[in-house]
């Protein structure tokens, strides 16, 4: 019984141990997992294209999923790939919902207005670089974007990403290859 484990020393528990406690209803353990991984989950969500408020929402939703799914955790020491995987699934669902919304807006139909004019950017160099990178990332198709974000930006292994996304490792590498190619093209176009 977990409850009998009373005098835990303040030594850091593994994520797996924390998840076992979450499964038994220990909110403190959930809080600790949150402290360890929430910012990383939120960053992944943002890089998958969610706007800040939505990333906040889905971060919370992901950690609530943890409460429901803790019992099925596979016991790996670090839960980060698992959490990121749940966040990716949340992001996919969210995207579908936006797509439906957008499709509905369009289906109701009317003459499209021209897109808002690009604001003149006289911003700092760093900011421009960030924008350039963001635009290139935004232009990637969702599946390529997921792989690029998880492998390159988040440093997960190909195997972890494959498990997370439920695809063969070879697929991860293929998507990554095309993601890189598109990003490089987009960035070099942006330079000109």
């Amino acid at each position, binding site marked *: 019984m977990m409850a009998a484990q009373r005098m835990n020393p303040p030594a850091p528990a593994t994520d797996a141990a924390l998840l076992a406690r979450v499964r038994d209803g220990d909110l403190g353990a*959930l809080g600790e997992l949150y402290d360890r991984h929430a910012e990383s989950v939120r*960053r992944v969500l943002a890089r998958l294209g969610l*706007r800040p408020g939505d*990333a906040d929402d889905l971060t919370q939703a992901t950690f609530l999923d943890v409460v429901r799914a803790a019992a099925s955790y596979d016991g790996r020491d670090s839960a980060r790939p698992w959490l990121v995987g749940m966040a990716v699934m949340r992001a996919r669902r969210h995207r579908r919902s936006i797509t439906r919304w957008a499709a509905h*807006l369009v289906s*109701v139909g009317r003459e*499209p207005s021209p897109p*808002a004019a690009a604001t003149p950017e006289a911003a700092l160099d760093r900011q421009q670089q960030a924008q350039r990178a963001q635009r290139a990332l935004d232009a990637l198709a969702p599946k390529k974007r997921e792989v690029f974000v998880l492998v390159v930006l988040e440093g997960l292994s190909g195997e972890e990403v494959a498990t997370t996304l439920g695809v063969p490792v070879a697929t991860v590498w293929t998507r990554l290859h095309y993601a890189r190619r598109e990003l490089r093209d987009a960035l070099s176009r942006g330079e000109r």
Partner: protein
Amino acid sequence: MSRDVCRNAWQAEAERDGRLGPAERASFARHAPSCADCTAELASLAALDDAMGALPSGERTALEHRRARQALLRAADAEIAGRAPVRRAPWLYATAAAAVLVLAVGAALRLSHPVHTEAVAVATAQFEVADVAAAQWSRETTGATTRLALRAGTAGFHVEHLEGAARFLVSLPDGEIEVRGTRFVVAVDGGHTRSVEVTEGTVALTLPGYAGLLRAGERWPAVAPAQASPTPSAPSAPPSSAAIDPPAATDRHVASPAPAPSPPSAPSVSTAATAPATSAAGTRFGEAMSAYSAADYGRADALFEAFVRDYPRDGRAEDATFLRADARARRGDAAGAASIAKQYLRAFPHGLRRTEARRLAGD
């Protein structure tokens, strides 16, 4: 392509991703420096990583993280306990003033077939209105309440989750919609609401002869005429077993007319969330948290203690008390930790940290 590139160039990427076997690695390491293609490919990959490294990490401040954490634990607590969740809490990201982002006009929606959107940011609600067809609307903000009046036409709405006491309403010529965070499309014509369609989240819709909730994928009027019109509010406070997302809870969350913002004497509803980030209490709590995060537990203990003394009714007093006990434990002061944990359990018998507190209290 004027010529073939080196057939080993693909290995640059494989090398970068750590998927070359030892022999291949060694061979590529010997080959690459003398091969212009492979050298260029390696440089290009490195440049790509550099370029993408410019993406902002977008981390929240410690205080924002903290508040979101508190909201999460409340929501999780409600779920674990299987009781009707206090649904006000989950969406209290409450970044207060810091959350006032200016949403880029037009950039918010990536439609293949763009419609004009207007993004509006106010202290209380962030939302977008997409003018789908001749929408005539106006906005009015009173305190934490944002009200959009849609007089005619069709508009799409995206409301981001709302902070604490914030409310977002759409006034219709013949009714009203209240939401907490959702996407939906409303058509008004000739002084009447013609349709409401929800693509994400839940809205509470009130029209003559209809009051009920619409959830993602639902629309009013229902396409099928024989609709089981949900009664406006029958939230019979179910002591249900932990159903995931019990409908009654959602009812309460959206449909309840969100009674006045919690009075300061009600610490069970996080007042932390509604306190402006720059308030004295916020600053003080932030200082204590910084000390705690920096593992300066002695100082953290003292600062949290002073915080609880000076702001006993603040929603963060609970956390502060618990963290004092935790700070003591981390310094090796088990007796002090136990004593403060007992204080915590007396003051917050249903507190979110009760499990940990019991452990620290040694019972």
